[in-house]
């Protein structure tokens, strides 16, 4: 089977996954209707408010969400049809709460989430690969055992707790101790005053960037720590595997010095499985980090999906869930392709 056929097969497979996700999403958000006979609209509208509504108003609200009150089987089919059409045309409807199009709400938060997740993942990946290679050169050494123990420790940490601890140290205790010399913001994405002051400043862009960076550091470190352990362990194990291969022995026999063997021959090959992992990571980027974003009050998608869920803003939750899942599928596809391109030994099948 050639590359072309392989790509087509993966494409078809990806398309099937997307359809599966679309269907799953439909039923997931109608779970209350299926299980308890209440639609998301029922949950949102107050009972007293509902009593005063004319049936036209109620039906209008239902229609907005693509729902039918007390659905029978034909209504279900109709609802599913409406939903599928809306999803594939990118019409995610309006937020119950802000009344703005869900797409706008998502787009407003997407850059923040990408910034946070992107920077933290890059830091974690680079550090993970670097330290993983360092340690794998000499497995079983004190350095290696120590580093693995630290990685296991990080793996066991609840990330949101790390965030709270950092917040407590760097935005409360240290500012108090150093008299405000070391001061990190206690939350948010940007200081509103800075935003207002810098809007008309010719160098405002720099000030704003600096301010956002200042807000970014703590959540970035939190997420970076959370991801580091996994990357490190994966890189280390992958490289240790590679270093037992015959071609490494050959390289050593040629008289190459150990650094060349490690970085030129070992690391390059050990990076192959890492590429898949990294591609997948970037697929889950817009997933956001609900917990970390909640701790730091970061204006991003992860916090938004959680808050919307709490206040029963279903169109938003449904749309974000859908977008996240589809991005993950795309990233999966890209990872498969990359792996095939990078490793010519792979047989397509």
């Amino acid at each position, binding site marked *: 089977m050639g590359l072309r056929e392989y790509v087509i097969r993966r494409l078809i497979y990806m398309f*099937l*996954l997307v359809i*599966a*996700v679309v269907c*799953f999403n439909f039923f*997931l*958000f109608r*779970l*209350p209707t299926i*299980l308890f006979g209440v639609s998301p609209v029922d949950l949102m509208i107050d009972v007293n408010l509902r009593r005063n509504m004319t049936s036209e108003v109620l039906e209008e609200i239902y229609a907005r969400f693509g729902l039918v009150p007390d659905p029978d089987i034909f209504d279900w089919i109709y609802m599913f049809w409406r939903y599928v059409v809306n999803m594939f045309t990118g019409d995610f409807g309006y937020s119950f709460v802000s009344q703005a199009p869900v797409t706008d709400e998502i787009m407003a938060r997407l850059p923040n989430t990408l910034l946070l997740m992107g920077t933290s993942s890059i830091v974690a990946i680079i550090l993970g690969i670097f330290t993983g290679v360092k340690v794998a050169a000499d*497995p*079983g050494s004190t350095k290696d055992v120590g580093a*693995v*123990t630290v990685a*296991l*420790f990080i*793996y*066991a*940490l*609840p990330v*949101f*707790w790390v965030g*709270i*601890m950092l*917040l*407590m140290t760097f935005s*409360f*205790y240290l500012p108090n101790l150093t008299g405000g010399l070391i001061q990190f913001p*206690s939350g948010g994405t940007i200081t509103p005053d800075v935003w207002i002051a810098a809007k008309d400043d010719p160098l405002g862009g720099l000030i704003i960037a600096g301010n956002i960076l200042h807000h970014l550091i703590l959540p970035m470190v939190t997420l970076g720590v959370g991801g580091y352990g996994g990357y490190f362990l994966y890189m280390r*194990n992958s490289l*240790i595997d590679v270093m037992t291969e015959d071609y490494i022995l050959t390289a050593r026999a040629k008289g190459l010095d150990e650094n060349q063997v490690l970085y030129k021959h070992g690391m390059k090959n050990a990076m192959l499985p890492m590429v898949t992992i990294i591609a997948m990571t970037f*697929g*889950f980027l817009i*997933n956001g980090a*609900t*917990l970390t974003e*909640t*701790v730091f009050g970061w204006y991003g998608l992860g916090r938004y*999906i*959680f808050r919307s*869920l*709490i206040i029963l803003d279903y169109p938003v*939750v449904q749309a*974000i*869930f859908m977008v*996240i*899942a589809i991005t*993950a*599928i795309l990233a*999966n596809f890209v990872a498969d392709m990359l792996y095939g391109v990078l490793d010519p030994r792979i047989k397509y099948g």
Partner: protein
Amino acid sequence: MSTDAGKSGGWKDRNWYVSLSGFWLQYKKHKIGLLGIILLVLYVGMAVGAPWIATHDPSPTAKVAPNYLAPQWVSVFDPEGVVTGEFMPDTGFNDTSTWMIDPEAPVSYKNGTNQDEFEYVYQEATGDNDFNHVNLTWTHANETMDWRTPADPDDNLPAANDFIYFTQQLEWPYESIPSDVNMTLDFAITRTGDFAELEGGLMFKVYVWVIDSSGNWRNVYRSYPLYSDSYRERQMDLSYLHIVDGWRGMVENETGYQEDETDILTVAVGLVPTAVFRNFLGDTPEYNYTGSVTASFRSISMIAYGEYFGLLGTTDKGADAFSQLIYGSRISLTIGILATAISTAIGVVVGLTAGYFGGKTDEILMRVVDFLLVIPGLPLMMIMASFLGPRTENIIIVISILGWTGTSRLIRSQVMAEKNKAYVESARAIGASDTYIIMRHILPNVTPILFANITLGVVGAILSESGLAFLGLTDPGQPSWGRMLADAQATGGFTHGAWWVVVFPGLMITILSLSFTFVGHTLDQVLNPRLRER
């Protein structure tokens, strides 16, 4: 391993013993593995023994003290700080010398001119009555009473000069006032004559005063009808003004000056006629009444809260952090272990089926796995937990639904490697059924790999549970570490300087998941020979 096990000899030659002891010999070489097991035993002990270890009500909403009190041992750095404790020297009236001003002179606890009407009796516990009592009685017989004119402007003293009381003294050793004071008074009231017939007991009240050593009386409690003749506890939460007024005189200021000479505080409990009695039916209604009222006291206690409380301080709602922390281990262990058990069971069944039968079955099952792998985990758990309702069993279901995919892939690949080996072929050749081959040959050979996978699964489940609890998706009645952190975060715990509500729950989660990680890592090294040289 022994090859002729099970034949004869003691249980030491049994197969299971030999393999287990062989395993243990390998396992105990790993220090972190041993550490993990010790920690796990401690945690399980904590979860099982929670009712005995916990010092207070573990409910996150049960207020036992003012909020954000620091742990008691922190007071080492602050010798003047008030440590929470019971300050009444004799709560059950056991030692008469502590609570009477002068036992030889009963007159001193009667007040006013009309003393004949009041009587004081001390009863020691007898066989059919397990408690010591102090009875204060007012027997009224159509006589004029000595009303206070003008009335006390601060309303600290009752309307009549005539009343009866007893006192107990306590010493306040600290140089700062308490953050809160709770008193408990256990009493019953019996009435005779007109007092018994009249509504509710408008004629008298039980008063509690705090008297500082300068002799200022401050009324901190007065009883209200309806009165019952069986003993009931009354909780008195002293107001901030009462505390400031009562304790200020015993606290040195910056220059070392103290208003009162001594650190002695007197608590007085009395039975007093009220102004209602006076105003009822004209100026001197007492002429028209006869009867008696007896207040019988069984215990009095006073807890003064300082800046320090208990082993780990209090939370934002004034609940005891230590008890919550102890009980929190239950939910983490329950969910961690049960969710992993369920997801491992699903994973093993799916992995075995897919790997052994292959073909279409394999294809379909693996597509389901692929699908679950692209679904974002935490959002799905959040959505399902909030739809199903955040009860413990639902959290378990939600976590296990996503947890089995890794296991099933692992098992599948092992089974595929195993099923083409010669011993399986030969078993099939002699007519063994699929079920027999799976259960007797394949499963035992893939289980060693499973153990490390299970322990790491528990770590994931524990972290998921705490994350969900942090987002508020947890059983509202159950204490959980994630919830403690959520409460601390939502109410700005550390901005009140309450680092203990942030540090300890997180440490508990970390150490528990770390011990599982250590055990899992060690199992991996012992049971997977391929990895052993790493």
